[in-house]
């Protein structure tokens, strides 16, 4: 009984909070007659979203694969880069300043230049997504690889296992929790990167919809796109958490006995 009450409050309380906020918002915009282009009511946003339902599928798909492309690129580049940095002190000295420099450059400033150089299409958006997402992956993976308990490294050395074997069997799996915390940050950043890329110049994607909606004073459409974008980001974050659970089942909280 107590347990079910607890479960109830775990899901019902946050759901009720959100529902309450939406109701207050709806009532406020009706009672105060706030113009639609300043602050649309939830019902107006929902209506607009419904009308756009088929067009949204295409635009969401574009943003989704730009995000995933950039995210994949940041894993493919970030993890080996982190490994190089941890294993080779000279590589570390050579690469670290470059990586930090790249991170320090405001990506919104880079995006127009990229589009100018590479042109339109999905690739420059993926690159912007990659640029914002790869830093946490490099830093967290490097931290994880450097955090291997020294005893395990000594043990591997005493068994005369090769550096590669030690990496595959000990260091990399040991670093996985760190890698995943980097991935979780990276996936949400990748969504932002893709949208920033679309802002600069594109004719599809949710970022494009937001930009064009605001230039036509269609605030309710912009809101609908923003909500959709948030849902995509939450879904992607959830997917990374799910993969983490599958890949590192030993990190799950221990079952009660």
């Amino acid at each position, binding site marked *: 009984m107590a347990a079910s009450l607890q479960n109830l409050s775990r899901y019902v309380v946050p759901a009720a909070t959100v529902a309450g906020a939406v109701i207050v918002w709806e009532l406020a915009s009706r009672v105060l007659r706030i113009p639609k282009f300043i602050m649309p009511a939830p019902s107006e946003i929902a209506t607009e979203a419904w009308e756009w339902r088929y067009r949204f599928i295409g635009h969401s798909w574009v943003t989704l694969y730009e995000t995933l492309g950039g995210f994949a690129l940041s894993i493919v580049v970030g993890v080996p880069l982190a490994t190089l940095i941890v294993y080779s002190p000279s590589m570390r000295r050579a690469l670290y300043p470059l990586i930090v420099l790249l991170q320090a450059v405001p990506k919104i400033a880079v995006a127009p230049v990229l589009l100018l150089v590479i042109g339109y299409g999905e690739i420059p958006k993926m690159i912007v997504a990659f640029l914002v997402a790869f830093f946490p992956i490099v830093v967290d993976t490097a931290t994880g690889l450097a955090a291997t*308990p020294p*005893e*395990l490294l*000594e*043990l*591997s*050395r*005493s*068994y*005369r*296992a090769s550096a590669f*074997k*030690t990496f595959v*069997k*000990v260091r990399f*799996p*040991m670093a996985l929790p760190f890698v995943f915390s980097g991935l979780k940050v990276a996936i949400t950043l990748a969504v932002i990167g893709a949208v920033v890329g679309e802002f600069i110049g594109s004719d599809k994607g949710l970022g494009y919809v937001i930009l064009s909606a605001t230039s036509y004073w269609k605030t309710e459409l912009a809101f609908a796109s923003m909500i959709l974008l948030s849902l995509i980001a939450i879904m992607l974050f959830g997917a990374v958490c799910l993969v983490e659970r599958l890949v*590192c*089942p*030993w*990190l799950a909280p*221990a079952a009660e006995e």
Partner: protein
Amino acid sequence: MIRLQGVEKTYRTRRGDLVPAVEGITLDIAENEFVTLVGPSGCGKSTLLKLVAGLTLVSGGTVRVRDTVVREPFPDVGIVFQHPVLLPWRTVLDNVLFSADMLGLGPEGYRQRALELLTLSGLAGFETRLPRELSGGMQQRVAICRALLPDPSLLLMDEPFGALDAMTREELGFELLRIWEARRKTILFVTHSIPEAILLADKVVVMTPGPGRIARVITIDLPRPRTVELEFDAKFKAYSDEVRGLIFASRRARGDGR
């Protein structure tokens, strides 16, 4: 089996100064002998263990194992650390098999032996558990099984029971003796517990810090198998007074004794 001659090890600090960790260590350890190294922190006990394992190299003198000068790690060694350092994603059984795996021995052939070792150390029935489901003492038993799996003739133990509570510590000590009686091997065991050092050993090497040197090597003439009752033996008391005396004499000489 192990012969240390004039062994010296210096470390370089961050500022570039050379600091001696151990100096003038000469010691002979016979085959199948149980030797404990006891002394306060910073007397170079662990350094000595690493030198024997070939994990770090001497700055002077020589370390020989079976007449071969140690210049690199060699496989005939099992190491147990203060912390079990098990792999959290491997089951208990697979953690024991880790040593065979890393040695490239094909873990399949060692399965049976791994199961026997686990049974011998009271872990039968826990084979498929993950390390985090085990207590500290049980985890350390797994680490010992892992070290014993390839049946090395030399076992190096660096304060293996140091992180455990006193009762588990005593229990594991006797368990280790039981395993050792059944299948003799040379054990070099670092501890800073004086009773533990005496209770387990054939020979106690008392070390003093600053830099680490051997103060005295005491041969322990107590009957085996060792029992808890021995701790009340007059001889045990005499040994423990002797060790304590050596350690505190060095403290007084250095002016930080109380």
